[in-house]
């Protein structure tokens, strides 16, 4: 049985476990129909031209992990940003791990999607927000059909959350192959501020496929900084579907750091539903071997006087392949839009490749939109300059790559994350450079 059939036929069993009277029931039923009709995307579709899921979906994944697994904090500590105080929402094989988590309901909610979906007190929030930003494409629909667990974060009006929130999804390796479909909902009310860090990590080389959906709502003047750390084993694949709906004067930024994984697809979508909104999308990708990372971004400028900034840097070695597809839509009403997009890439091997494609659809006439993409090699004259000062080739290369990524790293607001990313990059490049950028 292929994965699609398996998922569709599991749906009945899944529905039986949960509350059929829930308002979400209809949404789920609708969603599985969409997935059943459309199936997994193929390279025939324009948006998937350069990314094939074939090798990923031919595994015999367990779609419902049977048992709850326990992990010791000391064994997984290194995957947390552990040198800062934070809230933590931790999942092991898709199940919530209370002893590794630190949640709260004091003044704001940092808790679980399962609670939000089932408890009456969250009914209104779910009605107002659940599946309201996600598009109805087949993979998001697949996630919606099985949406049951993930992070639920609701920050109330004027609340400044001082500690960042870490969302961690571990897979223990108990299943020979595991498919996970976390569903996160983040609602940030007027004038509130929150910082979130998300990471997916498998602990063995058993294949894992994660098809995640995160919906984020930034209400008036809200500020959200979201960091995605993608440094998983090269047997794990991730399809990240993130939808951000912004109201007037809100500021949202998403930084995506892609270093690991077999196949990573980031579908990152911003919808600007108000004026004077600021959206920032930044990413650093450094991959090698046969890794594949695909950034598929959308910024939809719907109203006037808004800004968006996209800056993605990619370094590709060995046989690695990358894709950047950046779509910007400026509606006719969205006058005075400032939309910037940059995608710069360095290929450090003859066999690595990158396909980059800006896609601007501008219907307003008084806008500033710019885009630029470059593909190059490491600058030889810079290499000689550094080596002539005693910096060996490997370190010189690493330094140039740091420097190349620096624009993106410099806008990270949490110093510990910046340090961690710097360290991951150094590890990745096999060097030890004694400073942080």
């Amino acid at each position, binding site marked *: 049985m292929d994965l699609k059939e398996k998922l569709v036929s599991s749906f009945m069993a899944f529905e039986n476990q949960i509350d059929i009277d829930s308002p979400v029931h209809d949404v789920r039923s609708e969603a599985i129909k969409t997935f059943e009709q459309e199936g997994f995307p193929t390279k025939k579709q324009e948006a998937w031209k350069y990314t094939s899921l074939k090798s990923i979906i031919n595994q015999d994944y367990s779609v419902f992990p049977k048992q709850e697994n326990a992990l010791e904090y000391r064994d997984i500590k290194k995957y947390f940003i552990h040198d800062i105080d934070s809230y933590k929402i931790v999942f092991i094989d898709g199940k919530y791990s209370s002893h590794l988590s630190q949640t709260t309901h004091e003044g704001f909610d940092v808790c679980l999607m399962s609670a939000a979906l089932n408890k009456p007190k969250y009914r209104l929030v779910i009605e107002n927000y659940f599946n309201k930003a996600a598009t109805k494409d087949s993979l998001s629909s697949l996630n919606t059909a099985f949406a049951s667990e993930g992070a639920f974060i609701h920050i109330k009006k004027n609340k400044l959350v001082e500690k960042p929130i870490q969302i961690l999804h571990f897979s223990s390796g108990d299943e020979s192959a595991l498919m996970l479909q976390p569903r996160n909902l983040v609602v940030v009310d007027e004038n509130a501020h929150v910082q979130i860090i998300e990471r997916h990590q498998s602990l063995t080389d058993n294949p894992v496929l994660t098809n995640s959906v995160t919906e984020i709502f930034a209400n008036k003047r809200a500020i959200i900084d979201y960091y995605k750390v993608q440094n998983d084993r090269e047997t794990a694949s991730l399809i990240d579907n993130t939808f951000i709906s912004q109201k007037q004067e809100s500021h949202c930024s998403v930084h995506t750091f892609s270093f690991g994984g077999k196949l990573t697809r980031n579908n990152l979508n911003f919808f600007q539903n108000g004026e004077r909104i600021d959206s920032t999308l930044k990413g650093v990708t450094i991959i090698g071997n046969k890794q594949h990372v695909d950034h598929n971004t959308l910024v939809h400028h719907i109203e006037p006087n808004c800004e968006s900034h996209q800056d993605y840097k990619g370094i590709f070695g060995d046989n690695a392949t990358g894709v950047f597809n950046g779509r910007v839509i400026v509606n006719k009403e969205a006058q005075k839009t400032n939309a910037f997009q940059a995608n710069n890439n360095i290929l450090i091997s003859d066999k690595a490749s990158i396909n980059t494609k800006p896609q601007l659809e501008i219907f307003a006439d008084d806008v500033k939109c710019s885009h630029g993409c470059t593909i190059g090699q490491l600058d030889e004259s*810079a290499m000689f*300059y*550094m080596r002539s*000062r*005693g910096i060996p080739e490997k370190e010189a290369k690493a*330094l*140039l790559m740091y420097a190349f*990524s*620096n624009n993106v790293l410099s806008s990270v607001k949490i110093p510990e994350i910046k340090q961690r990313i710097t360290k991951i990059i150094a590890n990745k490049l096999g060097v030890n450079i*004694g400073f942080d950028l």
Partner: protein
Amino acid sequence: MLKINNLHASVEDKNILKGINLEVKPGEVHAIMGPNGSGKSTLASVIAGKEEYEVEEGEILLEDENIDDLAAEERAHKGVFLSFQYPVEIPGVSVTNFMKTAINETRKAKGLEEMPANEMLKLIREKSELLEIDRKFLSRSLNEGFSGGEKKRNEIFQMAMLEPKLAILDETDSGLDIDALRIVANGVNKLKSKDNAVIVITHYQRLLDYIVPDYVHVLYNGRIVKSGGKELAHELEEKGYDWIKEEINA
């Protein structure tokens, strides 16, 4: 210190150096002058180990050791320093971080521990004062947006930090106003000792009023065609290079 015997070098199959002989002893300052395209910068790059240049014949000895097969960084670790005619801009790496990395990598290659942070700071402070470099300047990205003078001053600052045995200054005077020239020359003179040596590559005699050479060599068409004392530089300044060309071609 440095001994070059019958050096032939080419780039992309084009012969540029056609049999250079040069000996530089500790404590000496040598000036290499010559018209454009004579091979001055090539000589500097070949000594520093630029890979695009192919050594076809001859040898370069540093303290009696043949360095032909050494990578640029290994030559640097042995005390070779090249002040670039066109220093490369490296956005995203600050001057300070660049120097820290260079010094610690050099120490690592010599089997030494990294330099303690406070010692490094002290050294940076001391050497930046020598070159009259503002502290703010050190946190800027290396050479990015620097004026011509700032770039050259930064080169000599790096030289001061690394304390090379053999420093090659490739057209360090180009693009410098008279104040910057004085500062740069003063820096070089302060760093000079009986144990190190300097090769000054220049087009004009101007710099040699400040960094006074023991020997002056004229490079023409890939060969050293004339050598003499510092008075040769004055003669060249007065008469230009044509008389030398005529002498050679005669």
